[in-house]
């Protein structure tokens, strides 16, 4: 048997995850209750940290929180299998209420924790915990100089971004070819189709980002509808980026993880902006949260630092688009005139 260099890379990566077995074994001592218990506790704690963290070194602690988030998703909630799994499991958990309440709790614990904390404290899950968001954020640092220049130029056509998009597409096609001749694919291997759509979006956005950006962000609703319909129809739909959370090597999801990461080099947070179905639910839940970022227009010096800091283009000279905001507080922390402040309506004003 000849092993190619791609086989060796795959083996290396799958071996990296083999240690997860040891962690799982330790957790099994809790006789299965660890998933509900630790998830609720861990995600709850992580969601509270944005509230407890002061302005000093906030971004540092946010990144620490994100790293913990990645760890928790890999080692504790690996059965959730990422954003698609969270929707599917939530539906399944809801349908078990009254029949198998423990199972219902198990399936609902992660999505309910995320939705409840979003309802209370805003969409901090996206900005502080979500491993997919963290992965893209860390990756996009590498090309931030170029993507920022692209943004400041009003999203004009950029040859560099175009070449990177071509590179991502080439990786996808070649990898797809290799997988297609070595493995069976089923309709459930949906992550490859989402990756394909992501690549098409990259090309569209390289040319027409200024005009079509926000219109295309509504694709998240379609994404949510498709996944929910799939869950209702009991279809097994594999999720992009669940590779990192599953204990075992899944080639289709591995490919889609790579594509999401590479795409983030061209457009920061591209998965969150255009395709993340879970983002829909979180934005809805966070609509009336008690914590909000507010902006004092009178102090603004129009330096546009908040615009530059926001990877999601959710801030426009202090105006915050709540559908897009991940509550990362970058705009708050970077503002030289302290125009932003956090409004907390947890305790109603006695006056």
């Amino acid at each position, binding site marked *: *048997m000849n092993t190619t260099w791609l086989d060796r890379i795959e083996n290396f990566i*799958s*071996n990296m995850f*083999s240690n997860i*077995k040891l962690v*799982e074994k330790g957790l*099994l001592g809790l006789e*299965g209750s660890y*998933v509900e218990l630790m998830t609720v506790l861990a995600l709850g704690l992580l969601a509270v940290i944005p509230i407890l963290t002061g302005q000093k070194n906030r971004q540092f602690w946010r990144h620490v929180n994100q790293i913990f988030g990645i760890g928790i998703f890999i080692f504790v909630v690996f*059965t959730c299998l990422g954003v698609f799994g969270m929707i599917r*499991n939530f539906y399944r958990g809801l349908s078990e209420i009254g029949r*198998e309440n*423990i*199972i219902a709790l*198990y*399936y609902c614990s992660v999505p309910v924790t995320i939705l409840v904390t979003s309802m209370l404290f805003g969409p901090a899950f996206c900005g502080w915990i979500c491993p997919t968001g963290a992965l893209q954020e860390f990756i996009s640092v590498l090309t931030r100089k170029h993507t920022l220049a692209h943004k400041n130029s009003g999203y004009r056509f950029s040859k560099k971004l175009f070449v990177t998009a071509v590179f991502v597409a080439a990786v996808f096609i070649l990898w*797809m070819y290799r997988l*297609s*001749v*070595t*493995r*069976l*694919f*089923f*309709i*459930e291997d949906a992550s*490859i*189709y989402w990756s*394909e*759509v992501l690549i*098409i979006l990259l090309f*569209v956005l390289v040319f027409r980002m200024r005009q*079509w950006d*926000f*219109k*295309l962000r*509504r*694709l998240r609703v*379609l994404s949510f509808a498709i996944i929910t319909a799939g869950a209702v129809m*009991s279809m*097994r739909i594999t999720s992009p980026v669940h590779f990192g959370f599953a*204990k*075992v*090597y899944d*080639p289709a999801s591995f490919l889609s993880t790579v594509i999401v990461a590479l795409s983030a080099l061209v457009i920061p947070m591209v998965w969150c902006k255009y395709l993340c179905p879970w983002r829909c639910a979180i934005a809805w839940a966070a609509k009336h949260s008690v914590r909000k970022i507010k902006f004092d227009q009178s102090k603004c010096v129009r330096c546009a630092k908040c615009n530059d800091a926001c990877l999601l283009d959710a801030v*426009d000279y202090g*105006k*915050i*688009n*709540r*559908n897009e905001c991940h509550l990362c507080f970058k705009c708050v922390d970077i503002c030289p005139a302290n125009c932003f402040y956090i409004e907390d309506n947890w305790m109603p004003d006695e006056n």
Partner: protein
Amino acid sequence: MKTKFFSAILLNLILCSCSIAGDWYTGRGCAEGKAVLEYNGDKKLDEWHYIYKNNRRYKPGLAVWASPALAVVGGHPMAFIGGYDQTLHALDLAEKNVVWRKITNGEISSAPAVAKIEGTDIVFWGSADRTVYAHSAFSGRKLWTKELIEPSSTLGQIFISSPYIHNAKLYISCFAYDKSLSRNEQKGYLFCLDTKTGRILLRLQVSTGILTDPIGFSLDGKSYVAVCARRGLLQCFDVTSETPRKVWQYQMPHETLGSPVVTTQTDPPMIYLGSKYGNFVAINAYTGQQVWQEMAGNWIDNSAAIGEIGGKKVAFVGSHDYCVYAYDAQTGGLIWKKPIGGEVFSAPTFFKIGGVSYLCVASLDNHLYVLDAQTGTIFNSYFTGNPIWDKLPKGEYLWGSPATVLSGADTCIVYGSFNDMVYSIPVMKACSLTAMARSVKSLWVSLGAVLFIFCAVVMPIFLKIPLKQTAN
């Protein structure tokens, strides 16, 4: 007419009496782990989906079905399959009905054994209620039951393996965890029972952990039983005389879940066993020395199967790296490695139809795969449903494996799926479960379809709908 009728019945009885021998080798029916029943009767076998919904007593999270044991009883090809609903089901695969059911007081996690004892077909199985059951395979009538472990209010986990039957003796392993603070014992026993009465002939503690199914073999006129502890210690006992004698032991590199299989047609006779970290080991059955060791992926859950292709013995094993491996049983040389759609958690079943060898395995992508055993090419795949719960700790339980009723064009695979159904799937005929396994061409066609739908339908619609003002 009458003569014809009685002749047919007589012929059937003769054929069927040949189908159950006195020996039964662990959960896979034969020492080589092929899990095949040859059925030469005239009854047709068709697709059948069996589900039993009444009064289920599930402990959530368990694996739903154990592996089936297949036997021809009274001229009918039957599957005996235990479940985590604590019930043993006797299914007539030809008539597609349940002949009998027997509820126990514990989960049945291992395959039963069927043997002819003094002219009666008897099905034996162990249940987590500490008991071994012996019932008439034909009627379900109870012949005897035997408690292996004394009851105690502090007893925790009990695990009873598949039986191995040889010379009217039943060998079975049993693990009992007594959680009493003072005793706090974990003991793995090898039991030997009289198949006629259930009397315990031997109780030997061989480990302090869970044990695999015992496997038996005969060499130079002597009978041996080998059993492996979950922690990887494989021990072989000479059971020729009344008092067993440990002949050798071999420590596997890592933990094991699956049971050993053995073939005496290699030189030397060899035992094959996989570990939870992917080591696939061939061990000399005479001496317990390792003959060869290969890495088959990163996690072997279940037993191997030994088949013969072109006069050469081939060892097949599935791994959690999505691959099925075929090794030269003699030398350990890799013959082929085939990735399928998910982790391979089952033991393979090996069978031949019309001179072509096939292999069937179950995978965690909820499909059964039938492969050409010579090349590894996928012959067909079947969708066997989503698990009724996801919370199955991988590597802690042995899940059900498929078995085959070999009957020419009627050949069926019997499999208890984790979606709560037992399937009888015809291999050579149309089947409603046949999966949409994509060819390379159809994969590219579907990618093209997504490209077209997204660019020509979805995007224009989304770009046409005006934006709602959402910024504040």
